[in-house]
């Protein structure tokens, strides 16, 4: 569950370190899929944690730390794209881990799925990333994205339907 406290310790430094340890990997993964650039993702993650450090005292509930951090990240990403739109090269597959030893059976081509996720419109990709990478519930995603819960669940359904359709795994009519 995403409401499990991830912050521990009495001092600000200890609390920050536990926040980093618990979340930096998920935050980086989410950021990478959000901005589709590994160098940009690194910068955004640094900006996010720096802002989190400076605002840590304002965090009212440790249980809310994860949603709080993802909200900061989304805001940083929005700021970045408002002031600076980098020319992104096509980096499809660039940040995918090389170690495939533990990969499950290839039910589908990894590259096709990767590209399909990248092509997904942000209104569908963002809730999907928050659910799968962040582990957030529909209600939590609704709060982070400032949407109502029904809209979030509809977008999650459509996100998966679109992916399956693009991969020709499903014949669901999205207009239904």
């Amino acid at each position, binding site marked *: 569950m995403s409401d499990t406290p991830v912050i521990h310790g009495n001092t600000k430094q200890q609390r920050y370190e536990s926040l980093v340890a618990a979340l930096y990997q998920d935050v980086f*993964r989410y950021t990478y899929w959000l901005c589709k650039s590994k160098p940009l993702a690194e910068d955004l993650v640094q900006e996010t944690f720096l802002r989190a450090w400076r605002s840590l005292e*304002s965090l009212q509930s440790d249980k809310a730390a994860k949603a709080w951090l993802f909200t*900061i990240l989304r805001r940083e990403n929005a700021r970045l794209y408002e002031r600076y739109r980098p020319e992104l090269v096509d980096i499809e597959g660039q*940040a995918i*881990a090389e170690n495939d030893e533990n*990969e499950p059976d290839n039910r589908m081509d990894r590259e096709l799925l990767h590209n399909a*996720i990248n092509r997904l419109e942000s209104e569908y990709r963002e809730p999907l990333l928050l659910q799968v990478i962040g582990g957030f519930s529909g209600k939590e995603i609704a709060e982070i994205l400032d949407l109502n819960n029904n809209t979030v669940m509809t977008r999650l359904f459509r996100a998966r339907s679109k992916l399956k359709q693009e991969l020709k795994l499903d014949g669901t009519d999205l207009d239904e």
Partner: protein
Amino acid sequence: MDELEFRTRVYANPTDVDKDLLEAAQAEPRLQTILDDARAFEADLQHQLQNIEIPAALANTLLDLPERAESSAPVASKLASTSFFQYYAMAASLVLAVGIAAVLTLNGGPSATETAFGADLIMHMYHEINEIDAITAGTDTSTIAMPAVAQVMAEAETQFNDEEFLRAMPVRFAKPCVIIPTYQSAHLMVQGSHGAVNVIVINNSPVNSEYSIQDDRFDGVVVPMNEGNLILIGEKDENLDEYKALFEDRVEWTI
């Protein structure tokens, strides 16, 4: 339960389906196939989304951030070194007449970024010059109500932690302004001893250290404050230290 409803609910969250969905799947092989396929697809999706190589040095970099932030050393960020620098370097090349003098710096003077930021701030004074002139001339003696001031502050993601001190210092002007692209700032004018004193709170990247700005008419000071900057600009001879002491500890960020 029909197939569309079943598929909609399963696709929305394949890993956490309700009991009634499971029962429906057990009762109807077609629905069970949909559920099995959805779960298989979800495994692939999770694997794909999670299978991102994490930069080896990232954790240590993040753990070092507080020390670097607290020591006032610039935090290495490619965002700052590319987008901000390019913008400010361009602004600096356009505004040559503004004099900037370092009051206190660790590295001998404001950076090019800070210099250009100062230039933008001075330029903004002339954007609002009619209001400044009206306050300085005493023709605008209106007072902005506190809720309106708070609203302007809120739009810049900031607030006063104590509004009492403002009661003895009429706020003549309060407006959300965009002084540099995309950064909403709160621009207040209070009645000073020598005219309007501009108080600007902006949630952009903090400057490295406090520095003064000036031109033929105005004197100002840029004060870094955690998440952003506090800027005070008044007519020559205005005692800005007095206003700095009043505002510096009473402004806080809301995120």
